């Protein structure tokens, strides 16, 4: 096991889609048991950065990359590394709730089954603990065999969080997880994220400064593919060093 300081370290990362350069020489790291917000205006590369961390960008044929991304000290794009193992350890929650067209229970057991957990009792425990962690258990415990798409939007998103937790990943990537939800559901998810950071390293993409302020400890501000500032959220929001950051915080760009 190589030594590492942080769960995820990014060093000199540049990415392209075809000829278009999206990320420009990004270097940052994501601390354990912390919520790190990646913020910036639309099209600045927030999602691209996030999806580079679990290699989801590999799905795009024209995607190219330079620089290193290390998970627990190991290069995730290295020759011997397995993308399936990586994604088991780095969970993801998407912008729009996307439960599988299956029952609530099957949504949770899908991941563990993929990775070889087949014992009914174990799966049962995983279902309960994942749903409890996602603050959904009390609402759905009597209808675990009902179709997941019948849940409300907010419940669906919490189910998606539970699904991500089902394989017990140390890191969770969240790509604007509340932007498609109503304010009350959104508040619940934000609360949940703060709660979850006790046990997980969370990386949250958001274009909402207030949300970053409420939820995150660290922030990275991206602008046109450049990492403009990377520091404690409080420091960035209260005393931005760069005028682009200030412009974004005060709403002049966005």
């Amino acid at each position: 096991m190589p030594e590492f300081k942080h769960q995820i370290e990014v060093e000199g990362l540049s990415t392209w889609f075809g000829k278009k350069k999206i990320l420009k020489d990004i270097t940052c790291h994501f601390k354990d048991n912390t919520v790190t917000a990646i913020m910036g205006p639309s099209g600045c590369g927030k999602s691209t950065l996030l999806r580079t961390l679990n290699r989801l960008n590999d799905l795009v044929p024209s995607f190219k990359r330079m620089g290193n991304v290390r998970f627990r000290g190991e290069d995730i794009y290295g020759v011997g590394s397995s993308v399936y193992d990586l994604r088991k350890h780095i969970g993801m929650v998407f912008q729009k709730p996307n439960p599988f067209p299956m029952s609530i229970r099957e949504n949770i057991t899908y991941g563990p089954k993929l990775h070889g957990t087949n014992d009914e009792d174990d799966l049962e425990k995983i279902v309960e603990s994942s749903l409890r962690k996602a603050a959904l258990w009390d609402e759905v415990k009597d209808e675990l065999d009902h179709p997941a798409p019948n849940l409300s939007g907010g419940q669906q998103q919490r189910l998606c969080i539970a699904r991500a937790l089902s394989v017990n990943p140390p890191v969770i990537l969240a790509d604007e997880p509340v932007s498609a939800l109503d304010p009350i559901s959104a508040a619940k998810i934000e609360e949940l994220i703060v709660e979850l950071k006790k046990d997980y390293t969370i990386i949250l993409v958001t274009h909402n400064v207030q949300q970053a302020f409420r939820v995150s400890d660290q922030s990275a501000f991206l602008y046109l593919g450049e990492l403009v500032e990377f520091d404690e959220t409080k420091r960035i929001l209260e005393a931005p060093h760069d005028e682009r950051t200030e412009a974004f915080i005060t709403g002049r760009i966005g």
Partner: protein
Amino acid sequence: MSTLEILLQKIDPRPGFREARKSRRHFTDYVFKILLGIVMVVIISPFFLVLIEVASAGFSQVFGFGQGQGIEFFTTFPGAGLLGGIRNAFVGTIELIAIASAVGIPLSVFGAVYINEYTRPGISREVIEFTSDVLAGIPSIVFGAFGFAFLVDFLHLGMGLVSGSLTLAFMMIPTVLRTTQEALRQVPMSLREASLALGATKWSTTWNVTLRAAFPGVITGVLLAIGRVMGETAPLIFTAGNSLSVPTELTGPGSWVASMPYTIWAYVSDPRAYLQDKAHGTALALMMMVLAIDLVANLISRKVTRRLV
């Protein structure tokens, strides 16, 4: 509301009729409503006319109690003078459709999966899609001619069950392929990503998530295809042969097989009057079979969909 209006409403409760007298615009609106109703009747009446025509002569064959009628219509062979039932055609059609489906459906579904999930958009994909669109519109007699030239003659399979059902399978492929493709395209990308992000392989994602989400659409395509080939005569004329019994072998004359559409065609072309009735009976039975398959598939689809949505 005056007493008169209340009275009017009692006589004719349809609001459209009363509204129509109020103004020119109300009147036009009413006229178009009536026109659309007439169009509807024109559209659906051929269906009922066919049903009445077929049932009037065929009902006694399928539901009667005479010789070769009722249950005997399906359980006895035609026999001397073709006075018996149509067991040969009934069994033949079931066998042909079963083999054609067993070959055609997996081929087209997995073909669609390969094209949609495993290849990038580009020339080759467009060529395949264009080709299957053309194939879907080709007259069935052309498939029959192809089946004869390729399967019967070139591959030396000879006429019979194998050549006949493979020809039907060829006919099913374009329909099932294209509808499956469409169903797969409807599955949101983020569903696939959610599965991949959990560490699933591409195949696992495709099989457990994508295909499952696309299932109702796939079923629809399969139904369309089965319904279509079940009633086809032309592809079978040169490929399946005909028989007054059921096939006993896989190749050679022993594998020749009758089918319901072929029997309808043969009986209708025959001068003997009672064969006209048997042709109608066969047609009625065929329609009922297509309907039954439709109902069953709908049920399955709804069951799966209820689990899904």
